[in-house]
């Protein structure tokens, strides 16, 4: 129970035991989501605050619902309509919010390492909901949870992560999480979107998606982060689709029972074709449900709602 009272900042720094604990707790909490009355009193009286310095629909809603299903109160702070516009620093904003009595802060931010910084500023636990190009640990935990739903194990599976590895916090967290749990991870994308020394993280890197997908159990398609493409890292969306997008042909290199994943939001017709995204092999919507269960588990384990 070492998560209690602690931050959850990255899977790089998380032990496999803690990851297993989150996953098994999420497994038992997931059942709540199918009840007619989706509410348990476990975290009654606790308040969590989401601080989103970057736009998000899925993750923010997922955390807030997770809190509410556990009877915690969820308040949100968004940078678009706040004192940030007036020039307030993150440290000041966060300390002010905690003085109102919140028990846990969940932050998304465009700068890598910001959640580590927030954790130094605050005494209450901090959960990383995505920091820059660094990590998105709860996303990777829900991805692993979803893979377990279909494959019942992680060890020995081949997972191919395809796309913009360079800018992807989802890729980083999945690489750390999946390799710790014994998966064989391959990444592929245009060479301009592969970060340096990526293979030293224990993965194999390819510049052609087919090579990474060959024999894969899981094909994980990353969102092409058009908003982070400052430079000419690839010529056009059209060319990206033609050479790196996941379509029926590229997917045929995977195992016959391979599943297809995507963290959302999808650029349909760019990194993934609609027929694949909506095919029976796609577990993209299952990931969304898993996300709520995993976040319920995380809030439960950190806020120590058990007696």
């Amino acid at each position, binding site marked *: 129970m070492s998560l209690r009272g602690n931050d959850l900042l990255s899977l790089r720094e998380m032990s496999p035991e803690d990851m297993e604990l989150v996953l098994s707790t999420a497994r038992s909490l997931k059942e709540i989501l199918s009840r007619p009355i989706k509410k348990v009193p476990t975290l009654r009286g606790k308040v969590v605050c989401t601080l989103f310095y970057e736009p998000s629909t899925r993750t923010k809603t997922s955390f807030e619902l997770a809190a509410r299903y556990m009877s915690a109160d969820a308040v949100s702070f968004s940078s678009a309509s706040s004192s940030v516009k007036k020039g307030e620093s993150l440290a000041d904003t966060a300390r002010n919010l905690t003085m109102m009595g919140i028990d846990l802060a969940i932050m998304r931010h465009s700068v*890598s*390492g910001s959640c580590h910084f927030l954790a130094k500023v605050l005494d209450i636990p901090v959960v990383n909901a995505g*920091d*820059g190009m660094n990590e998105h640990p709860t996303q990777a935990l829900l991805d692993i949870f979803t893979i377990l739903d279909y494959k019942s194990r992680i060890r020995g599976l081949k997972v191919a992560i395809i796309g913009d590895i360079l800018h992807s916090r989802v890729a*980083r967290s999945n690489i750390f999480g999946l390799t710790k749990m014994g998966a064989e991870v391959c990444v592929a994308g245009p060479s301009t979107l592969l970060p*340096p*020394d*990526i293979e030293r*993280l224990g993965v194999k890197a390819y510049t052609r998606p087919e090579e990474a997908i060959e024999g894969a159990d899981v094909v994980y398609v990353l969102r092409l982060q058009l908003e982070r493409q400052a430079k000419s890292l690839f010529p056009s969306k059209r060319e990206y689709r033609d050479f790196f997008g996941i379509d029926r042909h590229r997917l045929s290199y995977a195992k016959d029972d391979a599943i297809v994943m995507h963290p959302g939001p999808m650029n349909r017709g760019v990194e993934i074709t609609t027929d694949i995204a909506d095919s029976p092999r796609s577990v993209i919507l299952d990931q969304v449900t898993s996300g709520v269960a995993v976040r319920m588990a995380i809030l439960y384990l950190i806020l120590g709602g058990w007696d």
Partner: protein
Amino acid sequence: MAKDLLIKGGRVIDPSSRTDQVLDVLVVDGKIADLSENIEPENAATTVLDATRKIVMPGFIDMHVHLREPGFEHKEDIESGTRAAAKGGFTAVACMPNTEPACDSDTVVTGILEKARKRACVRVYPIGAVTKGRAGKELAEMGEMRAAGAVAFSDDGSPVATAEILRCALEYLKSFDAVLIEHPEDLSLSAGGQINYGLVSTVSGLRGIPRESEEVAVARDLLIARLTGGRLHFAHISTKGAVDLIRQAKARGINVTCEVTPHHLILTDEMVLETAYDTSTKVNPPLRTQEDVDALRDALADGTIDAIATDHAPHHIDEKWVEYDYADFGISGLETAVSLIIDRLVLPGIISWMKMAELMSYNPARILGVPGGTLKPGAPGDITIIDPDCEYSILPHNFESKGKNSPFVGWRVIGAPYGTVVGGKAVMYDRRLI
């Protein structure tokens, strides 16, 4: 009339005469008068400093500091910055022109010198901008600045923008006998970068600055130095590739020198992860890898690197206690440099005491063309006294500098600046400012 000063019983190390023996040093009228065994004070008015078991060297000259005045006095000013220098064992500092306004005219040079005359406790040598407003478009009035007291020229903080303007500047400076100090960085390669490009940038998700950003610039500048035959000095070299290029250039007779900072000689980018993104590790050029650190140390030994300079870059805590990308680049270095060099390079035997004096005193004086860097009779009475045995912890909140931004916080080190003598007057002794 300054009182005479006698420093007794110290181990005198002077690269200009290759002296290394226990001697007394007498300073009369602000100038070195005598180095001998057992000098007796000539009269009761002579100030006597005991330097038993201490090391006495020509005054250290930090040829690369940011005093931030005018314009950024909340980060540092001439008074606080020179107090930091004195505390850190430096008898002189050369201050970079990236102030507001930029030091790009004789008026600003004169203003800095005038303020220094009133407030500074060590010598201050202004460095003028190469181009107006450091904008890289038109040459600044370097001749007028030289006449007003600027010792060198640089657009530091930025590289000299184009090869052509660098070419013009190096040619033009031949009339004024001053060195051009270049901050080598290809901005198109470093844009948006926060730390060294490599494994650590991949793991941390921080944008990388490739080593080639520095090396492309060094290569360009060396070719322009060859073309013009001008006097070029590279600031804060940080990569193995840059060192290799400079070594080759020197072997081919190109008129070039370079400096390195203590932090690039000691730290690696791994520290970004070890400190969980502490912004005290954010500096430009960024902390590199062990391979680079090793190459820089080799280059000290073989003479490729001429000087150690701190690139003292103080910042206010409000500019560092923020998200990594939003933090300013820079390390407050004046009050840690001497101890770090002793603890990490001299005591482990990587460089000798003599070499340290060369790198921190003799060579900076020679490169800048300023007095000092020697204990020969007639030279300015600028002396640094070192306690090689003093063991202590680096605590930035005790810094004289307004900039407490140091990645060395809490480090236990052996060796400390013990006394700083400027023009025959002790401004720091027994580790305390006077």
